[in-house]
């Protein structure tokens, strides 16, 4: 194993060419945390760093790019990043609603239902950001077998107050600014065809190491699952690609009794049998619950506080981490969580022409809570901003919403973007309502299953950490450092007016019935002979 790793390092130094990166480092980790409701959250993270690399300067797109030689870094993804000069990229494909109330914050933040794509790209250069964005989403659609090609301009927004890059943005010594593009597709399914190309990006595929646990038949049986691709530039450290896979599994569902014991074998079908030779580190980290003390087998190599860690590279194989509780599971009566606020978003109203968007925010803390609220809606849901009303415990208030920015939708071409800052009083329930109109779609704009309705993308709420009193001038750039972890609301299903797609057949049926009725009556009248029958009274009695 060591020898193979040595070869990898040797090769990566041999291929040290024009970009000036010196090496590629691959590390993998798996975090397992039992959740209060008896489920188990697992988070895989595969991290490849291309040391010393710099994202492509968009001004160099016209000239030939130097050839790319990677050993561990995924080439197919690297080609896409350089072809479209993408500095930072976040793609997530999730299935199901992340239940913040029960599960708390996720390990990976992007848990909005369906597909979500975020990219920062340099503005300068011959090719516009929008052209490159289009190319990027098509290329990713091909790479990940997802319908990202339909994230067109009707779904693309630039919510630059809600999202900030995780890494750094280079300016290539020429004051190149960056622009954000964001789009989400809540109706996207996630299945094996998305996981297959995902695993192909890893140096060990799903053959060895932690990635061998990603068995599609088990992970897609999870109550919630999602995968993510995160590319960012870490400055001098280079370009980082982080591939993540999260799932929430339910051992109670598999067990015959109320036991929530789990093991790698029971969750994923098998343990880890081989090391991934390309990995410089390979760690399994188990979070131990605070109150109870379940037993862990095998004995963890290091255990500090509430974390127990296993080093897969040195651990004895087959590694099958298991957690066992002494007693059966009692569902907790109170689920306490660390969330600053809880959110419920609904679309009310029963007509197909209008409705009311309602957001209920509950601040459980005894301190005021500031939030950034982002709402992106397809154009066929039109907001009326003047109808925005804020109520606290039933009383109208006008000091809750501030710093609004609103990009109105353009029919058939651009979605709505609504960003605002909310200030929630302590221990309060705030209700925001907005009147919306549902547009009348063209016949051809309806999806094949139009009667099911349209999925609306989730809203995002980003709690702001308390302002630093020294630097409390509320500038937007400063907000970047105050942003907490985002909370994605659930998606909504909206019922827009659908035409009667079978109308031609109905017309035919109605007309035919009418013709048959008239013809039948007339035919009867013309051909029947109406005579008066005299019945014999005696016969009638018989």
């Amino acid at each position: 194993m060591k020898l193979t790793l040595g070869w990898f390092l040797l090769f990566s130094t041999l291929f040290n060419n024009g970009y000036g990166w010196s090496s590629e480092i691959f590390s993998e980790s798996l975090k397992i945390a039992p959740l209060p409701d008896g489920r188990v959250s697992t988070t895989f993270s595969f991290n490849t760093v291309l040391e010393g690399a710099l994202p492509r300067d968009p001004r160099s797109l016209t000239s030939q790019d130097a050839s790319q030689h990677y050993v561990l870094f995924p080439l197919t993804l690297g080609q896409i990043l350089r072809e479209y000069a993408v500095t930072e990229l976040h793609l997530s494909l999730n299935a199901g609603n992340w239940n913040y109330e029960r599960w708390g914050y996720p390990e990976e933040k992007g848990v909005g239902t369906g597909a979500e794509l975020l990219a920062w790209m340099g503005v300068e250069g011959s090719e516009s950001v929008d052209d490159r964005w289009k190319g990027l989403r098509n290329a990713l659609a091909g790479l990940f077998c997802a319908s990202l090609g339909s994230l067109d301009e009707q779904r693309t927004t630039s919510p630059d107050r809600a999202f900030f890059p995780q890494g750094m943005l280079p300016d290539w010594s020429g004051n190149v600014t960056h622009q954000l593009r964001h789009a989400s597709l809540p109706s996207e399914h996630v299945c094996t065809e998305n996981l297959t190309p995902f695993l192909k990006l890893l140096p060990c595929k799903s053959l060895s190491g932690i990635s061998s646990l990603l068995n599609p038949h088990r992970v897609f049986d999870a109550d919630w699952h999602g995968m993510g691709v995160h590319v960012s530039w870490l400055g001098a450290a280079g370009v980082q690609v982080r591939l993540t896979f999260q799932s929430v599994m339910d051992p109670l569902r598999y067990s015959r009794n109320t036991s929530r014991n789990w093991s790698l074998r029971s969750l994923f079908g098998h343990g880890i049998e081989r090391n991934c030779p390309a990995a410089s580190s390979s760690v399994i980290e188990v979070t131990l619950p605070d109150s109870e003390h379940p037993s862990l087998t095998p004995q963890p190599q290091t255990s500090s506080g509430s974390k127990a860690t296993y080093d897969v590279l040195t651990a004895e194989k087959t590694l099958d981490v298991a957690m066992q509780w002494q007693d059966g599971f009692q569902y907790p009566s109170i689920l306490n969580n660390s969330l600053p606020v809880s959110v419920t978003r609904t679309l009310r109203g029963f007509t197909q022409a209008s409705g009311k968007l309602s957001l209920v925010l509950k601040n459980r803390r005894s301190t005021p809570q500031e939030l950034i609220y982002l709402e992106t809606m397809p154009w066929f849901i039109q907001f009326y901003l003047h109808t925005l009303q804020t109520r606290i415990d039933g009383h109208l208030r006008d000091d809750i919403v501030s710093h609004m920015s609103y990009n109105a939708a353009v029919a058939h071409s651009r979605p709505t973007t609504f960003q605002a800052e909310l200030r929630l009083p302590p221990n309060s329930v705030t209700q925001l309502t907005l009147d919306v109109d549902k547009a009348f779609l063209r016949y051809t704009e309806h999806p094949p299953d139009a009667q099911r309705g349209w999925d609306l993308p989730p809203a995002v709420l980003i709690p702001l950490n308390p302002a630093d009193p020294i630097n409390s001038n509320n500038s937007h750039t400063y907000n970047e450092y105050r942003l907490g972890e985002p909370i994605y609301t659930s998606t909504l299903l909206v019922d827009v007016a659908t035409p009667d797609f079978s109308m031609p057949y109905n017309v035919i049926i109605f007309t035919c019935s009418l013709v048959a009725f008239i013809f039948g009556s007339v035919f009867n009248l013309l051909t029947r002979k109406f005579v008066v029958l005299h019945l014999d009274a005696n016969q009638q009695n018989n």
Partner: protein
Amino acid sequence: MHLVAFLHVLGFLSSVWALNTSVVNDFFERNSAPGASKHTNNWAVLVCASRYWFNYRHMANALGMYRTVKRLGIPDSNIILMLADDASCNLRNKFPGSVYANPGRHLDLYGDNIEVDYRGYEVTVENFIRVLTGRVEPSVPRSKRLLSDERSNVFVYMTGHGGNEFLKFQDNEEISAFDIADAFEQMYQKKRYNEIFFMIDTCQANSMYSKFYSPNILATGSSKVGENSYSYANDNDIGVAVIDAFTHYILEYMEGINKTSQMSMQDLFNTYNPDKINSHPGVRSDLFRRPLDQALITDFFGGVAQAEVIPPIEDLGITDDAPPDLGDSLPAPEEATSLVKVSPSLFSHRPSDILSSSNVVDKKRTVQMWGGLCLVGGLAAWAFRKSASRRPNA
């Protein structure tokens, strides 16, 4: 005069082109039997045009074909798989990540390694025709394109709900038999295939191939006009029918085929049994130019690359100073006499006709080349002299 010279040059160029294509033809046909296929690569377009869970069997049909062509050697990069709905990760599926095509659930068609190129709302008539004809936007990735050429054998499989001369896509739009026929004609004109094998499993399926008019298409369908196609079996745990009868019996036969199989399409068609299938499958071979008993199943279902082992270069006796084709081209006396006979045929390019033994063909060709070169050179010199002599007068 200039015009005549120009025409001669044109004729010469076209004959050189024809000779070059005949070189290519020779290369590919050197070791093949007379009725063998001339393809060098295989492509498959597999379409499940039905949405919704109760159409599970259509997903299973397409996935069964996907498994078969992949097993017989067509790589994922050459398979365009279109699935209109997600059966495997559907919430109604009791077996997540799996699609089964038999009641006992013995074989998982979804497996661990699958690439679905068009899925969900992307499976539309427009996208299907764009894939076939190659008229896609520049940004469409390679995995969503049919990058076939004139040496490609393309297998097109479609399944869904249909009727007389149409197939429904997602209960929303239809593709007609004329649309597919025209798309195939466009493919033929754009040299996007060598041969097409079209298979369709739907009600009144045989009507779907009745409008084809482009050459080298072999077609089969599950039922004749006025007849329904039926499903094969239910699985009680999945709760719906899992596969259609026609596809089931084809896949059952295919399980016995491997990459080196010499079974022909005729053998496949002979297995059709209307009593078992509950409908009358049809075959259309009038556009197909090879006898069906010489068209191998692996010509369409397999990605079989014919490898030719050639002896090492020193065995051929090639020396550096005299390349073999130049050495051969020195015309022997009896060939010099034939030069006169051969040269008229220079301007009628019939590549495939010059096929007797490769040695004679080689010699003939070089003689033609030299003859043509002399003729055109002479003509050009003469035309140049004529124009040069005329110029002072002008």
